[in-house]
């Protein structure tokens, strides 16, 4: 795919993907630790299924 020949639709897909990825990574870094369950933190073992 020639970068200059990408359609507007393709450009939008790539832009939206990158924005969403950046937003999610920021959310994971800044917010997730604050809302983690305190009960889980106490457990030494995890029950997997």
């Amino acid at each position: 795919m020639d970068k200059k020949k990408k359609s507007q639709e393709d450009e939008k897909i790539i832009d939206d993907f990158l924005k969403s990825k950046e937003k999610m990574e920021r959310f994971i870094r800044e917010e997730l630790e604050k809302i983690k369950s305190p009960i889980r933190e106490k457990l030494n073992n995890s029950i997997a299924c």
Partner: protein
Amino acid sequence: MSKKENLSIEQEECIVELYKKGKEIANARKKPLVLMFYTSGDGGGIDENDLYELETKLDEKLGEQEVSQMDVCIQTTGGDANTSYLLAQLIRKYCSSMEILIPNYAYSGGTLISLSSDKILLGDTARISPIDLQLSYNSEKIAPFALVDIEKYTDFIIDTAKKIDFESDEAKTQFITPLVGKLVEEHGTKKLGELFRMRKLTELHARILLTDYMFKNCSEKKRRIDRVIRGLTSESPAHDFDIDYNMAKKVICLNIETMDRNLYKLTRQLTSICDKAKDLGLICNFINTDRKPFFEVFMPEETQMEVKDGQKKEVTRG
């Protein structure tokens, strides 16, 4: 990597291909498609954080509306048992009817999530698995062990003891005691107790999902639910056990069908593109030691999508 100018042509092509394929499936099925793609064998298990990530993604794409029908395409080897149940309930908050698409596999926690669907659609060679529990040690480098393995070990002791003609009960006890002692010594009474106690929880989770969703309108609800739960827990021969369509339908009695050829092909292509996107570092990147899953919601384009109260809503985004 996050800036557009840093992307290679191959990466750009892969992103476009992924989103077009997702949309193609949503258009073909005329309903939103939620993709839940986890990597296997390298820290990509179901984790508590996934709840908030999926909620954020669903809110972003669906807002607060509850759609009438939705598909969920899933690929996972499982993970945290509680989170699997909570993810299933979270998805169902956004739709009144849901079908699960499994092109390759949805093991363990993935199978549990599937129980919240109205129907499971399985690829020709796709597999699910028992939902039996495993205990993983967070702080020690010990492989996880499954409750069903312990039960099979105790079955082995009992069966073997029956086959031997002991001279007395005392001799029988002398045979059994060291074998049971070895098990307790290896895992500890507390952890063994915890695992047996937690089985009740996973059975409860499965029962709630089957009652409220898969067998909601089934006339033989109790019998079928009991059959499914037994088939996916105590009657399964092992935790790592592949269940194919025939076994899931005829033996375990799940509400399950095989996908039509076109849907199978499309969903297989979608997961292959996800694998490629992962290899190119676009999705499922590591955060600390865990690989993140890739969640996305693909909306059908320019079609009429029913919302919960039966009204029709124009879908122009996606």
